[in-house]
């Protein structure tokens, strides 16, 4: 009895889970594997359309006599690079109409003209003509002829499914793509973005955790950048930082803090001298990192705040009795309580920052030294139109991510359950 029950349970479970699993598999897991396939192919954006035969029908009168008409079909192969094999053509005509001097490739039977055009190479074009006449000599309705669309079919290879592979994409990724610089930029962005967000998150959480008026409002406001749509926020920042008429530069110039406007998002390096040392700062990258921090510290804040509020008050009261200073309380009570959540946050944010695309894309488009790996996927795949290369970069991202995850589960995976 219990055996049948557990079988029933299993079957129910699979029916309940299956739709979700299938959908996720098709849209999330399948593409990850498809990337591997595409990354070994020499394929460009224009190749991904399957070539198809096309025809445009033009109907012309030959003379005063409306019982005869000439039809021109402008035939072409939609692809510029691939041939179509065994093209079949078919067009239907009203009754009592028959073609004159039909092309040898075609024949006419039961009101249809059926042609076999054979193979069309890439870019193939032909003006194919048929003259028709009404066998009773009556006027042919031009419109009814024109409204009937010809049907074409043909066989063409799907370039995605061909079995020719190449290692060229990966060679290009590693040797012709400034790979080291790309990787370094990605890591700067990811690392400083993550650390900055967490530091500001701790500060904000520490503030809000104090007994101040309007604490809940403050918590709500602090989350605004995180919940706002990235498009709106990124464009507001671009406007704010614009060198020509942006508010920030105008303010700084107005109060004589800087002499002339700084192009915060469009300048790759800025030379700074601190204590006599001159060094170059990656300006645009730094600005983008600040945007990133601004947008994602709220998340760190929220998690740390939740943890802070769970720390028992008795701990602090005991510390007060022992005469501990505020700094001692922070270091010896608060900090140990939040290290676990901070390490988890660090890993999660690190991975997500590593994958961040929209923010950089909208702010700089990857120019002025802000080209990270995800941006590169887009640039290769859609700006340069080299799909194979884009996929190869995606594969690099996936490999790095898997490495991070292994490290993550080794280091913190066990701890995650404790929080």
């Amino acid at each position, binding site marked *: 009895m219990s055996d049948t029950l557990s079988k029933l349970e299993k079957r129910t479970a699979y029916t309940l889970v299956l739709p979700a699993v299938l959908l996720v598999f098709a849209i999330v897991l399948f593409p990850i594997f498809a990337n591997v396939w595409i990354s070994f192919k020499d394929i460009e954006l224009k190749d991904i359309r399957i070539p198809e035969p096309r025809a445009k029908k033009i109907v012309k009168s030959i003379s005063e006599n409306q019982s005869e008409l000439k039809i021109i079909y402008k035939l072409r192969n939609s692809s510029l690079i691939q041939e179509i094999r065994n093209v079949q053509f078919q067009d239907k005509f009203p009754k009592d109409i028959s073609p004159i001097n039909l092309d040898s490739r075609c024949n006419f039977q039961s009101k249809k003209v059926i042609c076999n055009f054979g193979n069309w190479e890439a870019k193939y074009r032909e003006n194919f003509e048929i003259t028709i006449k009404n066998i009773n000599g009556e006027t042919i309705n031009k419109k009814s002829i024109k409204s009937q669309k010809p049907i074409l079919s043909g066989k063409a290879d*799907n370039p995605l499914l061909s079995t020719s592979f190449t290692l060229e994409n990966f060679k290009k990724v590693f040797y012709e793509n400034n790979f080291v610089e790309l990787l370094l930029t990605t890591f700067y962005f990811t690392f400083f973005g993550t650390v900055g967000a967490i530091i500001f998150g701790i500060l904000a959480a520490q503030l809000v955790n104090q007994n101040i008026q309007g604490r809940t409002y403050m918590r709500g406001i602090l989350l605004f950048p995180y*919940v706002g749509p990235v498009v709106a926020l990124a464009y507001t920042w671009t406007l704010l930082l614009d060198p020509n008429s942006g508010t920030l530069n105008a303010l700084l110039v107005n109060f004589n803090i800087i002499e002339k406007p700084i192009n915060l998002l469009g300048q790759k390096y800025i030379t700074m001298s601190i204590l006599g040392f001159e060094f170059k700062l990656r300006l645009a990258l730094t600005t983008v990192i600040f945007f990133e921090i601004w947008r994602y510290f709220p998340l760190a804040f929220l998690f740390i705040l939740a943890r802070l509020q769970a720390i028992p008050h008795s701990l602090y009261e005991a510390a007060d009795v022992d005469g501990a200073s*505020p700094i001692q309380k922070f270091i010896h009570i608060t900090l140990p309580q939040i290290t676990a959540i901070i390490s988890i946050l660090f890993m999660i944010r690190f991975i*997500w920052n590593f994958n961040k695309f929209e923010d950089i894309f909208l702010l700089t488009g990857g120019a002025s030294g802000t080209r990270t790996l995800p941006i590169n996927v887009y640039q290769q795949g859609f700006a340069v139109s080299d799909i194979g290369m884009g996929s190869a970069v995606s594969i690099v991202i996936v490999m790095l991510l898997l490495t991070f995850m292994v490290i993550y589960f080794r280091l913190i995976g066990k701890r995650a359950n404790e929080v």
Partner: protein
Amino acid sequence: MKFKSLSIFLIISSFFLTCILSIWKIMSTLQGLSFTNLNITPVFSICILLSLSFVLIGKKINHLIKIFSLSFLFSILYFYLNEASPYWYILGVFLISLFFTNKLKKYSMESFKEDFISEKIIFDFITLFGIVFFAFVILFPFYIMLVTSFKTQIALLVNPLDFSLDFTKSLTELFKSYFVIFETYNFGRYILISSAVSVGTVIVTLLFAIPAAYAVARLNFFGKNFLSTSILIIYMFPAIVLVIPLYTVFSQLGLRNSIFGLLIVYTATTLPVAIYMLQGYFKSIPKEIEDAGIMDGQNWFGIILKIIIPLSLPAIASVALYVFMIAWNEFLFSLMFLDSPKSFTLSRAIQYLSGDAETPRQYLMAGSVIVTLPVLFIFVYFEKYLVSGLTSGSVKG
């Protein structure tokens, strides 16, 4: 010791007041006042004067009388030290110093003898400063977004610092950018599309996620542990690595530029989070209630529909809101899949607008306000649900 605490107190409190006054000055500059100097040093010195006289007077006179008279004197001093300024600006200075002196209430010469008083002072003012700082840094871009949408490109080019609104203009004149983006740029349509996609995503995601989450939370089946860990791993995978294969497949299937295609992708990418959040909640429902349902002869479908869903409405609401916000804010897939203006979502439409360098910025900002307002409204209104959802789902971003 007392002297050290006193000087720390004076410096840090004056620093705080100077910062607030500078922010006030910056905000006033943006209202068209032509200040060109922050006057940090003189302002800082009169701030020290204010703090010093506050602690020196101590409790000799009534607190209210003290703060009012001190603030009044302070404002007059400030008025003479500063560039010519209108009365509303000085009124602001007065209110700020009133707020500030009120905050100083707990400090007097006696209090500087307490243990760790310097650290406490620093913590106190850093807290105050932090709150002002965070509020300013976060709200400022939103403020600029809103105000720019009411200005005109020409006015902003002439004086990029003048964000004052001219209320003498008629309302149609003031809201002109909004009328233009609705009439010329078809934003009404984009709002509809965005809403349809987001609401559709919420419905489909819930339809798929509730049964799956129930199975993961309650039923025993082979591969259950594998499934629940892979949910976590999958939702760490970035959209950007899915984009190229999905783009090629969608192109061949003709799903690009279709709302349906977008809906599938959004649903699939939000499903893992939704399942993860829901199963956590389902586990917390006592199993006895379901057993009672089984006794009554309910099948699994009946149990989910009649017991689980009614009991977990708050969790479902928070998942729904959360998924709605993800779908509404989503940009990458809409950028990739939509290239015909007929099927744009709001985010994509704004990006398309910005692609044309000729588009006046107030239209861009009006569009941004339109896409931002609904999410902020939902967020503020349902904050309680969302925050609990965010922390339990450890959310993607």
